[in-house]
């Protein structure tokens, strides 16, 4: 509905602007037209000019010079000069129509000044004590017979105009709202429907009224979206189930591969070469095991089949448990883990999240260090606390990564990394899982180089559990 309000607002503004423009335009037009008319001052100018041109001869006879005569001819006008006192015409132009009288009373003069002589619109001018009356052609002017205006009305004119304008505006709006509200009423459910579409298309618009065909189309789109979403979910579920099934079925045979390989590896009766080979089989089957576990979890996290629990836990305890679990399995002790803390404190690092998943993430990082450093390496873990977040750092002093690899890790979806040549060390899903788990907790993971060569991972977890907004974060 917000967008409808915006629509109305925009329309009103446009309307007011248009009205203002129209008003200004009209005023300009009127003024221009009037200006043109004013040039001849509606025939009054001719009378004044005649008064100046007409000469009284020495014998008391009046004479009109050539230019005055031409002026009268051009305008197709006639003129008389009425003497003061007697009311007699003491001069008249040669083209005076016959019906024009040659004597005027004071009442007639007053009337003819305002109006017409025999339908000829007249204009007058004073010439000394006498009066010049100019008769214009019948169809040229219209005269207002009662040219008086109430002064109050003229004084109030600006206000009156404003009221006129306002009233006009109000009526225009009223018409607009009556017309538009009908359209709006039929549009409202459609707009609501469209607004509901991004939320998954779960909506229905009644197919009636002005825009029923639009509503029908919208319902079709919604239905399609629902179907697509359902299909997608079904597909994702099927994929997750399939991966889960495969990873389940592979566990028992893999147990036997691992078991017998380890058995041969530890069998003193076998030759050194055989035992070494068995060792390789064992190691590789462990990798397969990790891959199977990762694949299963990755698909579940990807398709959001795995629920992320929220339980209170202690991050320090979690790190210790994971490190100890890892170290207890590292029988040869090639990968000592050090947890850097000032004091052995377990009352810090209270966090809400999925404990098992976070353990898995940390364990994957430890395993990652192990896989990439077959000769062994020192691993250092650190938990730092900031006002808003926790940072878990896991760093090793092993072979580390090149800048190029780092760039790849940061920018490529992880499983894409295995598209390299066969000689390149192929990666499992370990780091992808870490990213997924941390992302599911609203945190982020950063990869980098360790202080002493090695590989370094920083995990940032927001204390409030809300996602951390960082530029470039997706």
């Amino acid at each position, binding site marked *: 509905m917000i967008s409808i309000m915006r629509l109305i607002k925009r329309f009103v503004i446009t309307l007011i602007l248009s009205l203002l423009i129209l008003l200004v335009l009209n005023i300009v037009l009127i003024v221009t037209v009037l200006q043109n008319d004013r040039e001849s001052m509606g025939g009054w100018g001719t009378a004044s000019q005649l008064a100046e041109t007409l000469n009284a001869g020495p014998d008391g006879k009046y004479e009109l010079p050539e230019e005055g005569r031409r002026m009268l001819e051009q305008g197709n006008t006639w003129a008389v000069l009425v003497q003061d006192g007697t009311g007699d015409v003491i001069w008249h132009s040669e083209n005076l129509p016959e019906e024009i009288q040659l004597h005027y009373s004071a009442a007639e003069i007053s009337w003819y000044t305002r109006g017409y002589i025999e339908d000829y619109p007249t204009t007058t001018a004073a010439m000394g004590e006498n009066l010049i009356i100019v008769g214009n052609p019948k169809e040229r002017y219209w005269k207002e017979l009662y040219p008086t205006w109430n002064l109050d009305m003229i004084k109030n004119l600006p206000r009156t105009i404003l009221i006129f304008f306002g009233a006009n505006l109000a009526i225009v709006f009223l018409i607009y709202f009556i017309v538009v509200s009908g359209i709006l009423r039929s549009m409202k459910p459609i707009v609501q429907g469209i607004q509901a579409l991004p939320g998954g298309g779960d909506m229905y618009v009644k197919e009636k009224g002005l825009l029923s065909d639009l509503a029908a189309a919208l319902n079709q789109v919604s239905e399609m979206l629902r179907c697509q979403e359902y299909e997608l979910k079904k597909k994702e579920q099927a994929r997750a189930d399939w991966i889960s099934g495969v990873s389940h079925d592979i566990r028992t045979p893999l147990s036997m591969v*691992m078991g017998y390989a380890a058995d041969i590896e530890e069998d003193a009766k076998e030759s050194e070469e055989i035992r070494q080979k068995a060792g390789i089989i064992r190691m590789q089957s462990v990798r397969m095991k990790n891959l199977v576990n990762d694949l299963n979890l990755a698909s579940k996290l990807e398709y959001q089949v795995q629920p992320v629990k929220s339980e209170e836990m202690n991050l320090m305890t979690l790190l210790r448990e994971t490190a100890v679990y890892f170290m207890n399995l590292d029988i040869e002790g090639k990968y000592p883990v050090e947890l850097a803390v000032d004091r052995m404190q377990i009352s810090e690092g209270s966090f809400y999240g999925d404990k098992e998943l976070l353990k898995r993430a940390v364990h994957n990082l430890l395993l990652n260090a192990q896989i990439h450093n077959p000769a062994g390496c020192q691993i250092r873990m650190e938990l730092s606390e900031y006002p808003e977040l926790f940072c878990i750092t896991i760093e090793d002093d092993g072979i580390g990564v090149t800048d190029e690899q780092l760039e790849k890790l940061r920018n490529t979806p992880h499983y894409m990394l295995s598209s390299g040549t066969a000689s390149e060390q192929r990666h499992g899903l370990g780091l992808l899982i870490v990213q997924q788990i941390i992302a599911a907790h609203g945190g982020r993971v950063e990869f980098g180089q360790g202080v002493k060569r090695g590989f370094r991972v920083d995990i940032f977890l927001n204390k409030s559990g809300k996602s951390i907004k960082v530029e470039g974060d997706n």
Partner: protein
Amino acid sequence: MNYDYLKNKKILLVDDEEGLRQMVLSILKKDGYEQVKSAGTVKEALELSKMWQPEFAILDVMLPDGDGFCLFEQMRSFLDIPVLFLTARGEEDDRIRGFGLGADDYVVKPFLPRELLFRIQAILRRTYKEDNPLLELAFSRVDFERAEVIRQGEHIPLTAKEYAILQTLGRNAGRIVTIDSLCEAAWGDNPYGYENTLMAHIRRIREKIEENPSKPVSLITVKGLGYKLIPSTTKIHS
């Protein structure tokens, strides 16, 4: 430390996969377990349990005529023995269900033989500890039955907390135990805030079991993580 007394415990292995059964049997035999029998179905397992009275069971969850959880519950009605689930079902729910029923451990396939053996031994040691309450250390010996340390003929009694801590360490001898687990063993469910007290107790335990408490060889610190108790025979599997 000698764990041979555990090797003649009767172990029942239930798994429907013949090949896997054979492998686990051979692993157990090789490690010195002499009395191991296996079953492939719930029916077989129940019959064997009644007749043979095993002292420990390794159960698969998915069996052709039922599931391991139900089998476990039925066995419990006439037999009180520790159980380890060995299964391909690694889901969190399954794990929780297994532990909820009272299982002692839950191992998801695939597994390394060594890890399985260690877990079995840990369970057996925990369950049948009274059979051999003596823990041999480099300079002393811990008698858990009498709650005392014997060093050079001298009997030094252990306090309740020291006993709880040493017992937890002893059960996991040769492995690191987190300070969290130790605090929990000594002070219960809410162990936070006892780290310093734990350090004090560790110091006192060292005074009792070590020759030189400032240079410990039996109870060693793993920086930042926890402690490790080294039995006098470091090779546990002997």
